[in-house]
């Protein structure tokens, strides 16, 4: 996928909200692919996901925060804060707004969304999230994520994040963003839930099969007091025993399928790891750029003699006397060298970053293909398993029916 080489300078600027001047054709088609492939979900007509936020006015707010307790992936109790996201559509005619969706999300889900956006739109500067940890809380001694002030600041930060994404002409069309606002339960939880529900279903099915085993015994006892009916009952009872026993093999296969689903979830972890790496490289790049900018500024000041920024050197110079022109020249030369070095470093870091994104992207694409293929295989073998179970069921009951007919 061809990417237009971004100006390094552009990378330095704080999140620009204006669209890219020539959006990459490849980028757009990828976006289109994402939304086209999936079915259009949600209320209203099918075109809504495509045009949702650009044609209709949407109001998004993170209106409430609530403390919750739950179980995490390690099945340990944890406390966290959930935030209520409300989406309103504004009617053009009267300006009235109607609440269309509302659901609760926690910080980690916002993170997941942002990571997803970072990866799928590597060319776009994705709006930032508020800080993860309460590092600095006014007039409090310890960092506490439950602190009401922190929660309030975070709430505002999360709201800003959503509003910025919604006002971005490309990001706002993203299907996952739309689902984030409207659909309870994200992808990972959904796949997880499939596994849980499968277990519950399997337990119940076990019960149904096993109770049939009782028929075997009672038919046998009954056949003892019957003359003509005896044989038929006895042999039918045997088939009921076979039926009851068959569930054990069936459930073994179902467990295998559940395992395949779990494996599939590792894809999410892989995605997360890539996003983290990308963030680190971005951070690195930004720091280097800032550094460079500071040095350039310093250099300019020294050359022109004006002091615009506070520097320790400047202060000491003021207090303890000017430096000599030779000293100044030396410093300027040093700075110029550092700037040159810095510019080179920035260039290479930039290249590195882009290289990383390109490879990571390719990797993720490949992984996505693999995951889709693997999951399809899993679904097919699940279906095959169900078919086999049905055929066995038909066989057993047909045999039993024949025994009954001989009664």
């Amino acid at each position, binding site marked *: 996928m061809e990417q237009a080489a971004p100006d390094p300078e552009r990378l330095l600027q704080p999140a620009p909200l204006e669209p890219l001047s020539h959006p990459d054709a490849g980028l757009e088609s990828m976006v289109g*692919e*994402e939304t*086209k*492939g*999936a*079915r259009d*979900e949600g209320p209203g007509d099918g075109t809504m996901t495509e045009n949702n936020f650009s044609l209709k006015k949407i109001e998004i707010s993170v209106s409430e925060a609530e403390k919750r307790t739950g179980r995490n992936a390690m099945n340990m109790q944890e406390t966290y804060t959930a935030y209520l996201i409300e989406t309103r559509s504004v009617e053009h005619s009267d300006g009235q707004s109607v609440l269309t969706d509302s659901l609760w999300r926690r910080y980690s889900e916002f993170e997941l969304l942002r990571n997803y956006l970072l990866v799928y739109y590597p060319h776009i500067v994705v709006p930032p999230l508020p800080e993860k940890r309460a590092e600095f809380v006014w007039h409090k001694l310890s960092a506490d994520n439950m602190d009401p002030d922190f929660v309030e600041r975070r709430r505002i930060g999360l709201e800003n994040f959503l509003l910025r994404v919604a006002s971005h002409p490309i990001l706002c069309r993203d299907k*996952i963003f739309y*689902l984030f606002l409207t*659909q309870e*339960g*994200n*992808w990972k939880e*959904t*796949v997880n*839930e*499939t596994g849980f*529900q*499968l277990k*519950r*279903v399997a337990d*119940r*099915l076990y*019960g*149904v099969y096993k*109770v*049939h085993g*009782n*028929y075997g015994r*009672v038919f046998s*006892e*009954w056949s003892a*007091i019957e003359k*003509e*009916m005896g044989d*038929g009952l006895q042999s*039918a009872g045997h088939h009921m025993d076979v039926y009851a026993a068959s569930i054990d093999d069936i459930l073994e296969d179902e467990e295998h399928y559940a395992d395949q689903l779990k494996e599939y979830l590792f894809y999410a972890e892989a995605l997360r790891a890539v996003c983290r790496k990308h963030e680190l490289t971005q951070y690195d790049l930004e720091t280097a750029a800032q550094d460079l900018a500071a040095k350039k500024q310093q250099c300019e000041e020294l050359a022109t003699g004006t002091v615009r920024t506070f520097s320790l050197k400047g202060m000491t110079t003021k207090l303890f006397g000017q430096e000599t022109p030779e000293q100044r020249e030396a410093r300027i030369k040093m700075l110029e060298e550092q700037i040159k070095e810095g510019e080179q470093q920035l260039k290479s870091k930039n290249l590195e970053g882009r290289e990383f994104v390109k490879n990571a992207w390719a990797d993720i694409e490949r992984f996505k293909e693999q995951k*889709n293929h693997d*999951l*399809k295989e899993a*679904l*097919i073998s*699940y*279906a*095959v398993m*169900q*078919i086999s179970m*049905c*055929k066995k*069921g*038909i066989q057993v*009951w*047909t045999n*039993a*029916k024949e025994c*009954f*007919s001989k*009664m």
Partner: protein
Amino acid sequence: MCGFADSSWKEISGPFTWTFGSCYLYTKRMGFLPALHRLLPCCSNTTDLILPNGGTPAGTASPASSSSLLNRLQLDDDMDGETRDLFVTVDDPKKHVCTMETYITYRITTKSTRVEFDLPEYSVRRRYQDFDWLRNKLEESQPTHLIPPLPEKFVVKGVVDRFSEEFVETRRKALDKFLKRITDHPVLSFNEHFNVFLTAKDLNAHKKQGMALLTRVGESVKHVAGGYKLRNRPLEFAAIGEYLDTFALKLGTIDRIAQRIIKEEIEYLVELREYGPVYSTWSALEAELAEPLEGVSACIGNCSTALEELTDDMTEDFLPVLREYILYSDSMKSVLKKRDQVQAEYEAKLEAVALRKEERPKVPADVEKCQDRMECFNADLKADMERWQNNKRQDFRQLLMGMADKNIQYYEKCLLAWESIIPLLQEKQEAK
């Protein structure tokens, strides 16, 4: 021709009602062919039944002409399809709302070529109360016979909706079975109460009138003082008593198992109904996999529907018939008890006579009557028991085959659903 239709037949057979037992008794007295074990014709020709002493037979005459009745005897005891001349159906339930109460009536359609029926076809409406009345009358008037059971009278209000479609349909089927069993019975089907039930425009008027002509054998069974033990219960009755005990137990167990299975299936259904939609939710978050996942969701939905149909069928068709047979064997046992009482009375009387010292040790008339009564009862009951055993075998054969069938159909529906999504899952994604 014998004067069976003549009302003076009443005198000879004493306080009996006309049954094949009476026929047996009569033929024994007259020295014709011995015991009527099965309902075989006691004579090949109605003309044989002319009374030798020229007297006229006494006894209660049934509305059925005895000659036509004996004609029937010449055929197979079980009236099969080809010789059937009486058809009764219960259908068309309707709700009636009155000021005092609300109830359901059913249409009873009768088609018959029998002479006992003035018209070839009848259509009347009856409610459960009327069926109950009929059964009581049959028990009274035919105490030596096994009367088929009715579906349960009382339902726990609040638990069961007695006006729901399922309940009414289940009841209708049971009432239809009840009448068909009577129709199939060579003696009961000729009972006058049965006739009235099928034909009378206003049954209530008949109920009030009462059938004073018939006396109850039950009345004449005196209470046997002081726990008199039966000398020797005939083997066949002892055997069937034991059989019925075990049979009822096994049926009870089967009923509990069937209920448990339905309960487990319903719980399985609840989970399935939550499981399917999860695939839908997941599908919404996918691109390439969206269609396959949606397909799986729909497939599970279809299986859920099939399972629901299975549990409904079992509840409506299987369980009620099972319970009916438990009631049937209960009523069989009470008839056996009555038979025991009759035998006990006879033996008590016999013993009383033996203790009396008399010059001429002639068996008094009333003891003989007792003996006749007992032997009649034995014959009727034995015949009914055999009929019951045959019917039971057919009924259970049908019931259990039906159960197997429903399960087969369930699996076939599921098989179809899963087989149809395989191509969807294997479909290659079109190049974008």
